[in-house]
């Protein structure tokens, strides 16, 4: 088997950039091609009238089809509990529950969610009437800055339902059996929710407490 490194000579010729010298015209056509070459399609899209069902209430909205579900919740319905941490499906802070399933609301368009039941963090509980998962997060200090927290909680609530429904995960040892309510299962299943403050150990304690009460 040959392992060679073609990047040094052969490949470098095919790349547009080189270091050092001043690059002028060439660069403009390469790196900035996107803006120089095709400023077309400058139209305003037709707005779409949709009915969004969120936390049990129906909302009639005229939306730009480009609007994500996350932005519709935040900017139109003022449900700002769902957070925009990355807007790329890479952090989980925008997690909401749609028809019982957790999804990232930044990677779906609002227009695609008509007819679905959407639950956000605001629909789970309020400061004076906390959902058990919210109460467990407080008790176990399952958060620090709090920014990922609504997504963590929505995710945790729906995640426990997934385990209960017998859905397997990456760490389920025997696929033919139902998964266990265990820390290793919860850790794997919650991995789509990043907490940069690093409250994971405490979040796991919170989830374990709620799971224990349920089983």
């Amino acid at each position, binding site marked *: 088997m040959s392992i060679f490194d073609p990047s040094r000579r052969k490949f470098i010729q095919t*790349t547009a950039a080189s270091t050092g010298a001043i690059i002028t015209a060439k660069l403009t056509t390469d790196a900035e091609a996107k803006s120089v070459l095709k400023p077309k*399609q400058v139209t305003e899209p037709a707005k779409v009238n949709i009915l969004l069902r969120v936390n049990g209430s129906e909302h009639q909205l005229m939306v730009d*089809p480009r609007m994500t579900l996350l932005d519709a919740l935040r900017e139109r319905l003022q449900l700002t509990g769902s957070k925009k941490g990355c807007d790329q499906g890479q952090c989980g802070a925008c997690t909401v529950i749609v028809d019982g*399933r957790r999804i990232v609301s930044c990677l779906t368009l609002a227009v695609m969610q008509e007819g679905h039941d959407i639950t956000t963090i605001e629909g789970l509980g309020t400061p004076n009437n906390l959902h058990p998962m919210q109460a467990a997060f407080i008790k176990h200090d399952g958060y620090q800055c709090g920014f990922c927290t609504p997504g963590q909680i929505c*995710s945790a609530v729906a995640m426990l339902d997934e385990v209960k429904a017998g859905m397997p995960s*990456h760490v389920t040892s025997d696929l033919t059996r139902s998964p266990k309510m265990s820390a290793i299962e919860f850790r794997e299943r919650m991995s789509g929710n990043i907490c940069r403050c690093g409250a994971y150990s405490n979040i796991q304690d919170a989830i374990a407490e709620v799971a224990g009460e349920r089983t």
Partner: protein
Amino acid sequence: MKAFNYERATSLAEAVAKVSHIKGAKFIAGGTNLVDLMKLQIETPTHLIDINDLGLDKIEASADGGLRIGALVRNTDLAANQQVRRDYAVLSRALLAGASGQLRNQATTAGNLLQRTRCPYFYDTNMPCNKREPNSGCSAIGGYSRLHAIVGVSNSCIATHPSDMAIAMRLLDATVETVRPNGSIRTIPIAELHRLPENTPHIEHTLEAGELITAVTLPKPVGGTHIYRKVRDRASYAFALISVAAIVQRDGTGRVAVGGVAHKPWRVEAAERDMPRGAKALTAGILANAQTTHDNAFKVLLVERTIASVLNEVKG
């Protein structure tokens, strides 16, 4: 994100007709890859045809004893399907190794197959990329290329296909069913769905414009021990550095496909006869003519050691 018009298709025929007749139209189902790329204007559809209402979300037994998986079956549901778990465990395993719980709830079977590369230069629209902007150059070559392909590469592109599921589908000899704009139905062996980059890395698959995947079928189960081993830096929610999908029979024969090494799910059937000879021989066949960079040269040894570990696991 560029402006587009949005419609929900009510029939297959309508969906296919629209996408083939409207310039710049695209299908949307799960959206987890397309919406992301639209935000960055890497994808700029003028129309989106939402196909979620087309009922392509069933998993059913096929006439030849296999399984027919609707194109819109969500990754979660496919992985959790009892028959998949029992008879095609490598597929469940591969699905569950991918993305996150949230994304698997959204992502569809067909969308997973057609997802685009995660090469960071493809994602950065300031950088040359032949896949995004034909003939602009490949930034990964000579750049940061730790995650990139080592087999089937070209001087135009060293991107990988990021799917885990597709590796298992390739291992299982899945077949892709489509509807073409003229309404005809065809089947494409999964090995022929994805293309190597050659000098047209922007053309990633063999579907015609407007052709829609309606289902993926699996042949009848082949038994054996099913393993999907994904190797990555963090323990979850990360793309594979490499992955190994294997089905090994009691007599030591079997099949292997490898992920994270090529522009398409990578399987070299001819090399599989060397499985009983062990990982070294098998890997030499699978990764023959590997072309690595300084950053990703480790993948060759990693594949070999991972295959060795998988074969050891089968032995028990």
